[in-house]
């Protein structure tokens, strides 16, 4: 089977987010980057499906030249090749992003059986790119999936709900958005990293469908107000235990 996973490069924000002076982006000068967590699991799932059923796994990203680093990271754990839709680094809105992905999928010589996304990106969290892509390609789509079973061209997908799991059945080709927890992504090996350097990445500049003006336009980013909490230090080391227990009694949980 041919499996595509769509991923986004996002900063590793650590404990505190700082903004650029123009309030249009996160200050990333001192930060590393990664793939959104749900999507990292999507890549692992693509690799496992191809290991089990044969075929090819492909990772696609829309982002700046530096996002090739994320494609190489995924190729190091087993993705076969990359598709890089190059931008100047400015964020694309969900409709434009979906349009570019659809065009790239249609340009492939052979269709994909399965297109995986994360349910939402770690940073923007728009919850919609995958569903827009599915509609544009005329494919069925299921959301927030934590287990995928393939049987021929049938897919059984499970979505966690309070107290259990909802089960969906659909026929490929299909679009599935996955959530962290569907698997535990593997770490790259040294030989894996060496192989990744030789794997192909097709880079191109995507056209912006629907014009340059975004209909969901970022005006500025704002840091939420600090909690204003002043921490009460109960003590240092094991000597703090009696004070902790007093607090637990005051709250009524003991």
């Amino acid at each position, binding site marked *: 089977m041919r499996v595509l996973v769509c991923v986004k490069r996002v900063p590793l924000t650590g404990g505190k987010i700082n903004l650029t002076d123009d309030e249009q982006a996160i200050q990333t000068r001192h930060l590393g980057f990664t793939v959104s967590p749900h999507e990292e699991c999507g890549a692992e799932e693509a690799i496992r499906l191809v290991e089990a059923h044969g075929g090819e796994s492909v990772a696609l990203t829309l982002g700046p030249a530096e996002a090739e680093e994320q494609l190489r990271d995924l190729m190091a754990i087993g993705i076969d090749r990359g598709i890089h839709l190059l931008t100047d680094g400015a964020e694309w809105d969900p409709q434009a992003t979906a349009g570019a992905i659809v065009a790239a999928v249609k340009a492939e010589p052979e269709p994909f059986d399965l297109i995986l996304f994360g349910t*939402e990106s770690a940073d923007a969290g728009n919850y919609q790119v995958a*569903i*827009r892509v599915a509609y544009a390609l005329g494919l069925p789509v299921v959301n927030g999936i934590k287990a995928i079973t393939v049987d021929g061209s049938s897919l059984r997908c499970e979505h966690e709900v309070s107290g259990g799991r909802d089960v969906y059945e659909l026929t490929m080709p299909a679009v599935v958005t996955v959530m962290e927890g569907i698997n535990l992504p593997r770490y790259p090996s040294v030989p894996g990293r060496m192989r990744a350097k030789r794997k192909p990445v097709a880079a191109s500049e995507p056209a912006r469908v629907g014009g340059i003006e975004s*209909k969901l336009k970022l*005006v500025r980013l704002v840091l939420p107000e600090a909690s204003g*909490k002043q921490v*009460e230090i109960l003590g240092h080391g094991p000597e703090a*235990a009696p004070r*902790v227990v007093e607090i637990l009694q005051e709250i009524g949980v003991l």
Partner: protein
Amino acid sequence: MTTLVFVESPDDELSQQAVVMAGSLGAPVSAVAIDAGALGFAPAAWAQTLVDVARERGATAIVAAGSDRGNEVMAHVAAKLDQPMAANCIAIAAGSPATVTRVRWGGSLLEEAQLDGSPLLLTSAAHAVAAEPIAAVETIALSDGVSEADRAVRVVDTVPAGGGGVSLADADVVVSGGRGVGSAEGFSVIEELAELLGAAVGCSRAVTSAGWRPHSDQVGQTGTKISPEIYIACGISGATQHMAGCKGAKRLLAINPDGEASIFSSADYGVTGDLHEVVPAISAEIRKVRGS
């Protein structure tokens, strides 16, 4: 002018919040729940029904809760109408274009944006406004516009979760361990304290990535969102990914050897020190107080 709100059920708190937020657009609010009969939950069919009802009633906006289903159904609506959608808003104001403030990074960052759509499509972030009982919820059947393709993807079965233990999402007390626990075996001190308190055991993403605990224990932006009376975070530095999952906790007690760790800036109570010494001491003290 009317604003259509998709309500998951009349007593669903997040849906109640969505109705309150929809009111700030200024138009009369029409709250609808969907009874799909034997079909059950089928996101495309539910979305088509909202599209048809919105058109019939001349709705200028469609709003839902920023829940799993709310965001999913609204994304289907957005794709069907080829209109923009703003997910997880904490504030909205009508206008041309409309102005929204929405959540990024699970709430660690906010975005002010212009939403230029017709109808306006948006979801409300959890707990951005206080819930109020909904005056009237109209239950509607699937519309005639629902196609066979819309019905094709639906919930065909629901399997119960494997039981046992205190549910992380509903627990009154959660005791979590982070990278500072050091190993899977290191969690024995966390488990011991949790058992004494009748608490659920949680962990940070670093711990699940290392394979020390299952993902179902993870508190965070990509894990479980918790809202206990008290959250006891042991050896957790306080990355934004983690804090997005525990900001619903009423009180936070942080135990960390590094007094400068960012978790202390969100904590109500703090103990500086090694969790492997502090946590067993707390367990021993509880036993002593209980006289056992």
